[in-house]
Each structure stands twice: as structure tokens, then as C-alpha cells.
């Protein structure tokens, strides 16, 4: 294990792999590990054209192993009663193919993995919403969880504090979409479309998204008949999700982003602090993103982490161009005034 003269350990860079080509791009760009999902409801990015068949996953593991990279399988949705077998199959597949770890959220799925494959490494997904030391310890003690992916709602100081109180590793998001709602605890998409983020693995399904342009160049975005936002011809329109929509309410004269503006999380400037806080793994969001995007983001962060470890200055300007609408945010991580 490499360490600098200061106090931190070299963190793993965990990168998204939406497709086999994306997986290869991420590993070539310097990912220490990639995470992916199967082509069904067992993962939280269950989009058409995305994810891996069992054959592709088998090949991906071989490709990664040959390059010293790890493959993690996200099995991080919540099986509705009566459909649990699909999630069992996913765990069985992960164990059979020798995946480095499974990332799970549901108690039943965690219990099945721990009971059936005691040697299989279990990570607790951000979808489990474990945000306190007691909650994390519960999962560690009951299901042998080795790593927790923390919700994007904590400050760096709070992450450091949690690190001192739990027996497992910490993985935290550093770049990508900002989930405004506690992950795994949001039924907004199901409320509007009848498709559940927790049970079907889809947030804001493309089939229910509409873009309507009027003669004056105004663009309206909708999800399942509900207007999410309206943009002038000079504004860039974000993908419509309920938590990034504009609304009115009593006592407010103007429409406003009731939850959050469309922003991208970018923690490049907080990287040294996160590493000092005891974070083992830095996660980049975006399995739904293009290969070019993954390559650009992973390369930039690979260089940043290596620069920090070598005591060099970090420059990450190139990442700003990749953020939604060129607006970026440190979300909850910098200060509790975000709340």
C-alpha cells in the first residue's frame, strides 16, 4: 500500500460501466474497479440498451482480471414480494463468476448472499440509505458487510466522524448526478409513471419523458404528463426528473426549484479532505453515460488522485465542461448549510 508523507492511504477509483465498451474504456482510463449491472430490474440503472448479459459479464471479469482491475456487481434494488428469485439468480451469478463484490441494498438480498455465499464480499449500496454509525454497524454485524457506500447527504467532517465509528470501509461519490432524495427511499417516479425506482430500477423512465417545443423556441419538459420545467431558447434543458423540476407554492411569488437545480456533483477540490477523512474508495456516478464521458471523467480523476498522492498540484478544469448545464456543486459535502 502506497502512502504519502502525510496521513492518507491511496484510495480506489470506482468507475461506472454501463456496457462492455464502457467497462473497457474505464479500465483503460485508470479505474481501479468498475461497477455494473445485469440487464434486468436487479440494478438501479435498468435502462434499455444498458448493462450486461451473463456472457458479457463473464468476459468483463476476464478482461478486468487480466488488467488488475476489479468488477463489482450492483444488485441494489428492492425485490417486491413474489419476485425474489430474480435477485437470487443475480447473487448466484456473481458468486459463480467470481465477481470481486456485490453491492446490495435490500435486507433479504443481503441475508441471502451472506447465508448462501459466506465468502462473497458484500458492499452496502447507497440505496440502503445507511447514514449513521449505528445503521452501518447493523448491516456489518448482521450481514458481514465489508464496505458502505455513503449517501450523498453528509459533510466531509461527518464522513470522518463516521469512519471512526464503523468497522467497515467507506466508499463515497465524488462526481456525477446529485440525487436530491435519500437513495432507496424515493417513490416519486412510481407516483407519476407507475414504474418504481426501488422495485424496477428506473428513475424517470425515458418512455415517459416528453420534450415539447413551441414556436417561440420555449422548450417544455414533461414526465408522464406532469410538467417538470420550461426553458427559454437560450437555456440548456436538463433531463426531466421530478426532484429537479420547477414548481410554485403558497407564499412564493416566483416558480422555483423546490428541491434542487440541475447540478453536477464535483468534489475535485475536496479530494484531499475526503482521503484524509478515511475514505477507501472514490466513486464516479454515471453508468448511463457515454463511453467518451466515462473516459474523460475517469482519466481526469485518475490524474487527480495520482497527483495528490505524489504531492503535486491538482488541476481539474476539464471536468467542468462535462457537468450538466456547466453548473457544478459540492452538494452536501462542503457544508451543512446545504440542508
Amino acid at each position: 500500500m502506497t502512502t504519502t508523507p502525510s496521513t492518507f492511504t491511496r484510495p480506489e477509483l470506482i468507475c461506472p460501466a454501463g456496457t462492455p465498451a464502457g467497462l473497457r474504456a474505464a479500465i483503460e482510463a485508470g479505474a481501479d474497479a468498475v461497477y455494473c449491472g445485469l440487464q434486468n430490474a436487479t440494478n438501479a440503472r435498468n435502462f434499455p440498451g444498458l448493462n450486461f448479459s451473463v456472457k458479457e459479464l463473464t468476459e468483463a471479469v476476464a478482461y478486468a482480471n487480466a488488467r488488475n482491475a476489479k468488477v463489482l456487481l450492483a444488485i441494489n434494488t428492492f425485490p417486491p414480494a413474489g419476485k425474489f428469485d430474480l435477485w437470487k439468480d443475480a447473487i448466484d451469478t456473481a458468486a459463480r463468476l467470481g465477481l470481486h463484490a456485490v453491492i446490495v441494498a435490500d435486507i433479504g438480498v443481503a441475508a441471502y448472499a451472506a447465508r448462501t455465499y459466506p465468502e462473497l464480499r458484500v458492499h452496502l449500496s447507497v440505496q440502503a440509505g445507511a447514514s449513521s454509525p449505528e445503521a452501518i454497524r447493523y448491516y456489518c454485524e448482521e450481514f458481514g458487510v465489508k464496505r458502505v457506500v455513503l449517501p450523498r447527504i453528509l459533510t466531509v467532517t461527518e464522513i470522518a466522524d463516521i469512519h471512526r465509528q464503523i468497522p467497515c470501509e467507506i466508499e463515497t461519490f465524488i462526481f456525477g448526478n446529485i440525487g436530491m432524495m435519500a437513495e432507496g427511499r424515493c417513490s416519486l417516479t412510481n407516483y407519476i409513471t407507475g414504474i418504481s425506482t426501488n422495485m424496477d430500477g428506473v428513475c424517470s423512465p425515458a418512455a415517459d419523458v416528453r420534450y415539447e417545443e413551441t414556436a417561440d423556441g420555449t422548450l417544455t419538459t414533461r414526465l408522464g404528463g406532469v410538467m417538470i420545467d420550461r426553458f427559454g431558447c437560450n437555456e440548456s434543458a436538463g433531463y426531466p426528473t421530478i426532484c429537479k423540476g420547477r414548481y410554485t407554492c403558497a407564499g412564493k411569488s416566483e416558480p422555483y426549484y423546490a428541491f434542487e437545480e440541475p447540478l453536477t456533483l464535483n468534489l475535485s477540490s475536496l479530494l484531499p479532505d475526503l482521503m484524509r477523512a478515511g475514505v477507501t474508495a472514490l466513486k464516479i456516478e454515471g453508468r448511463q453515460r457515454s463511453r467518451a464521458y466515462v473516459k474523460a471523467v475517469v482519466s481526469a480523476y485518475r490524474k487527480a488522485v495520482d497527483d495528490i498522492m505524489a504531492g503535486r498540484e491538482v488541476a481539474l478544469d476539464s471536468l467542468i465542461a462535462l457537468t450538466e448545464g456547466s453548473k457544478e456543486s459540492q452538494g452536501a459535502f462542503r457544508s451543512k448549510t446545504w440542508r
Partner: protein
Amino acid sequence: MTTTTPSLTFGPVLFNWKPEAWRDFYFRVADEAPVDTVYIGETICSKRAPFFVTLFDEVRDRLVAAGKTVVFSTLSETVLKIDRNLVESICAMEGAEIEANDASALYYLRGRPHRIGPLFNAYNEETLRALAAKGAHHVCAPVELPGTSLATLCASAREANVTVEAQVFGRQGLALSARCYHARAHGRTKDSCQFVCENDADGLDLTTLEGKPVLAINGIQTMSYDYLNLIAEVPALAAMGVSALRLSPHSCDMVKVAKMFRGVLDGAIEVAEASRTLDGLNLSAPYSNGFFHGKPGYSLQRAAD
């Protein structure tokens, strides 16, 4: 197959009511509401809790004297030290029955009898078995679980000696966040909120840019604009083995709501008549029942026969 008549419950008050209004609501419940179990406790925001905790004893005593079972519900999202302290103190209450709404409560409650609340994800039979093995004997299903899955959950719950509850009335909790949206709507943050949520007894409505109300804000919680109403589905819920039906408290006449559900459960009031009475409550928003039917949650489906 014989089925037992489900019991009727009041879930915890989810909104930041004035402490006296909160206490008087429960006093009236004790005196007049035909419910069997009453859940109390602050599940949304630990900053609100001090106002209610001091009233716990008198409210509990009054409810118990009226023959109600009293259960204390824990906070749904535990992040800060004050959140953690609140969960720990509720779980440490001597002789009290506790409903867990997050995993930090389970950390304290495992190994002794407890309940699982609707804000903790218990979607399936394997989860139910794992929780039961650690002492859970009663599970309130997540609001979005469709009726078909609820039926499967009930069947496996019987084998595991667990009873299942489902919400049948009131706005539905759809999402939680670390950010307080009530504070944000008033240009404040969670720390500087000055308890603005106390102005909205049933939540703050959010309306789209074309004037359609869709959601309601309750502190860190986002809720449905419409009110869940499963009065027409009561016979189906009873037939599939749901043991308890939860009414989520609002500022409307909840005693009347309870009487309608009680009447239908007891066979004393026809569904159609109870529906008409519930329609006459003059709520600010329409009814919905979509989740139960596997449709968009906001929609209103005709109950299957």
C-alpha cells in the same frame, strides 16, 4: 380460508402541529375514535421532537386508559447527533412497543419484539423473514408496494408469525431527503428554519408551472398531493390477510374517517355509503389509490370486485 377482521390504527402524526393541537388530537382519539392501535412519535425531523416528547406520558396514559395499544415510532432518517440521540432514547424506553423506521433503530431493537414502520424498506418475504428472526413481529408495508405483492407478503408473514399492516388513508410519504424543503421554500436552511413547517398542518402543496398541484412538502419529506383512500379495497385487503389498516392523521375530521373504516370492517356500513361520507370531508386534494393497483400512485382506479 377464514380471515380475521383487520384492526384499525392511527399512524404517527407526520406534520409539525402545535403541541397543544397534537395533544388534543390524541385526547379526542382516546375518547372517540374506534381504532385499536395508535402510533405516536416524531418520524420526520428531530428538531421538532422536544415539543412532543414532554407530552408523551399524558398522551400515552390517556390512550391506554381508553383501551388503545400505544406504539412509539422512531425517526425515519438518522444523520446528525441529535437524530441519533432521539432514536437511541426512544428505543431505550422501558416496556414500550417501538416501530423502527430506519436501520439505526434496528441496531438497538434487534433481539427483542418490535415493529417495522412503512419508512423502512420491507418489500419482500426474504426481508420479512430476516427481520422476524431478529424480533420483528409486525411490518407496515411500503406505500408503493402493489396489492399483488402485498398478498404474497401476507402469505409468507403468516408462516413467520408476523402480521402485516398497510396504509389506507392520508397523504403518502414518497421521498426523504437530508435537505429541508420547507426551509428552502422560505429561503432558509434546516439549521435556520425557525420551524416554518408549523404553518402547514397537512403539508405545503407544490404546483407545476402550468398550475397542476402534484406534491406536498413536509420538512425533509415529500408527499403525495392527493390523499390515499382504500375504503373500496378494504374487503380485498381483509381477504388477502392484511392484519391492520393504517389511517395517517390529517387536520380533517379523523374520528369520522376512522368510523367509516370501522363501519366497513364490521359490516355495519356499506362501502358506497362510507365512500360518500369520505367524499364529503372537503379535503383540499382528491383521492387516489394507484399504488395498490400497480398503477401510477396519483391515479384513482376502480376497485376490483
